[in-house]
């Protein structure tokens, strides 16, 4: 084939481009996954999505603002297929910012098999979530209930005294999920699939 010298059809030039472009492809594949931690960091910094932070230690000096009172409401939800009973022992409490408060939730396993559950917390309004701290919570670990077992599970929380003045009501909600991949999860999901088909 008579190719004009200025036209670069050679294999080397192509190889260089392929290598570069494949590097971008691999980089962008990685970037897709990097979005996961980026998203989580972004949400925990800004408190978006109502994600509350993890466990904190009880501060040595308490800075209680007795001039303000905030109503904290509790919501308990069960994810689909979760065969437990689950509700807060009190519906709501009034607290001063900076004051540690202890409340509890009740859960009962209504089946005759052991079930491992995981509670996921969420705070509304989302922008107040960063001011809501828990020193103790049943959501920090998985909860195992034997067949028919019931228990009261404590939560200890403090609302930061810096919380914006316009927040007067907070809602703390928990959703209990069956631990993904556990035996009960597999057998329950199997049953519900059969109903669908």
């Amino acid at each position: 084939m008579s190719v004009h010298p200025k036209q670069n059809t050679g294999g080397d030039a192509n190889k260089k481009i392929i290598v570069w472009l494949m590097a971008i492809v691999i980089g962008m594949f990685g970037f897709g996954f990097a979005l996961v931690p980026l998203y989580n960091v972004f949400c925990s910094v800004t408190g978006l999505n109502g994600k509350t932070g993890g466990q904190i230690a009880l501060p040595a000096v308490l800075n209680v603002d007795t001039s303000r009172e905030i109503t904290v409401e509790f919501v308990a939800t069960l994810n689909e297929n979760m065969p437990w009973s689950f509700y807060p022992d009190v519906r709501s409490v009034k607290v001063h910012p900076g004051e540690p408060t202890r409340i509890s939730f009740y859960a009962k396993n209504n089946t005759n098999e052991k079930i491992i559950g995981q509670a996921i917390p969420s705070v509304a309004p989302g922008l107040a979530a960063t001011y809501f701290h828990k020193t103790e919570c049943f959501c920090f670990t998985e909860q195992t209930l034997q067949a028919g077992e019931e228990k009261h599970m404590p939560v200890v929380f403090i609302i930061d005294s810096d919380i914006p003045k316009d927040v007067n009501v907070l809602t703390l909600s928990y959703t209990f999920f069956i631990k993904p991949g556990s035996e009960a999860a597999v057998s329950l999901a199997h049953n519900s699939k059969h109903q669908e088909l």
Partner: protein
Amino acid sequence: MSAVIEEHHDHHDHKPTGIGRWLFSTNHKDIGTMYLWFSFIMFFIGGALALVIRAELFEPGLQFVEPELFNQLTTLHGLIMVFGVIMPAFVGLANWMIPMMIGAPDMALPRMNNWSFWLLPGAFGLLIASLVMSLMGMGSAPNFGWTFYAPLSTTYGPASTDYFIFSVHMMGISSIMGAINIIATIMNMRAPGMTYMKMPIFVWTWFITAYLLIAVMPVLAGVVTMMLTDRHFGTSFFNAAGGGDPVLFQHVFWFFGHPEVYIMILPSFGIISQIVPTFARKKIFGYSSMVYATASIAFLSFIVWAHHMFTTGMPVAGELFFMYATMLIAVPTGVKVFNWVSTMWRGSLSFETPMLFAIAFIFLFTIGGFTGLMLCIVPADFQYHDTYFVVAHFHYVLVTGAAFGIMAGVYYWIPKWTGNMYDETLGKWHFWLSVISVNVLFFPMHFLGLAGMPRRIPDYSLQFAEFNAVASIGAFVFGFTQLIFLYNVIKTARGKTSVKATSQVWEGAEGLEWTLPSPAPFHSFTTPPQVK
């Protein structure tokens, strides 16, 4: 279109015969032809699904399909039209035209070209097989919409979701290989003297589109991989129970999804920028602003994705950022529309079928752009989101935008491909019936959306009945009109039309592709032309 007539001008201009010619083809024209036929077949399959949807929606109540099947039909319709029709048609046009437009003998990586085409029938075979199995009563086809939001596609996805994931992986690999090939061709194979700023706009728009593909198809592959591991390997990317977040899915998906919608329009911009100057018999107005506008649209498309997610509970600062960034895209888009109109201004216009489609494109795509602007206003979107208004918006930009651009391109270049002039009378019938029925089909959807009709539902309240009936009538006319197009293409490819095409084809056309004989010889420029 396969009837490329042998031109004896070079000793190595022989071509293989039989099925092997297609299976093992490394020829850019044969591969382009296969892409175009593949897309055409998918167009009719996806269209048939749409007609079932519109038949169901012709009147309130459940007539023909159960809600479960309805969801599968909308899902498959969307996936087939996006990944099986628009994208392969563009790649087909790129294969055919880019080497001829830049004065190259073929694509830079012909064997990869073969492989990227032949992945597609596998990918879509798998996807369509899941629908066929569903119709035979074996499980459900994917039923979560073309946007496959988690947890619908993870926790609640039917077993066939794994087919879907594999199929998306194959389409992704195919697109990435196609894009690499196009970039390598454009960078390495231009004829001497063909500088970047002398390239035809179609080549430019594809060059930029190929970079978009390289950047976002891997993200799509990533998101379906996360779905796969969530479904089967115990991860919890999108599962709140394990610490994940379903909203994260939407971020990753739309980070791919919004650039994807520009992937589906930029090559059409390119086609229109070739056609309008030809039939206005003038040079394109503002060549370099066209190039820069395309590049800025591509850049901006990476920072607007969350306009699909205004109702997920973003902070006000985020909503404002994505709103303004989205509005900004209207500026370079407006530059393009302005340039097309200015190209026509005081031109000596003639209205052959490609030009008719191009003018309709400019007009109707702009309507779609305007509804896009309405949607990107946050408080307004709270009302419009997930209603038929969104459906109207994206069908204006995709059907009367992307698809009309492709049809314009086919009419414009088919004489070069086949050596025969298409039937102009049939072309005009196809155009006028399409342009009227497509508006009867999609315009009422704006009103339905504003009145609050949600999208993706098989049944609706009585007050929506009239507009839905009108839309369905439009749909059937539009659907059957496309058979005229099919007939015209076959007739032209088989040489049954009366007029043979000259190499110039269109009196006002400029560019290297028109210096080649019609039909274009099997190998394009074996000796590179000198571009002044």
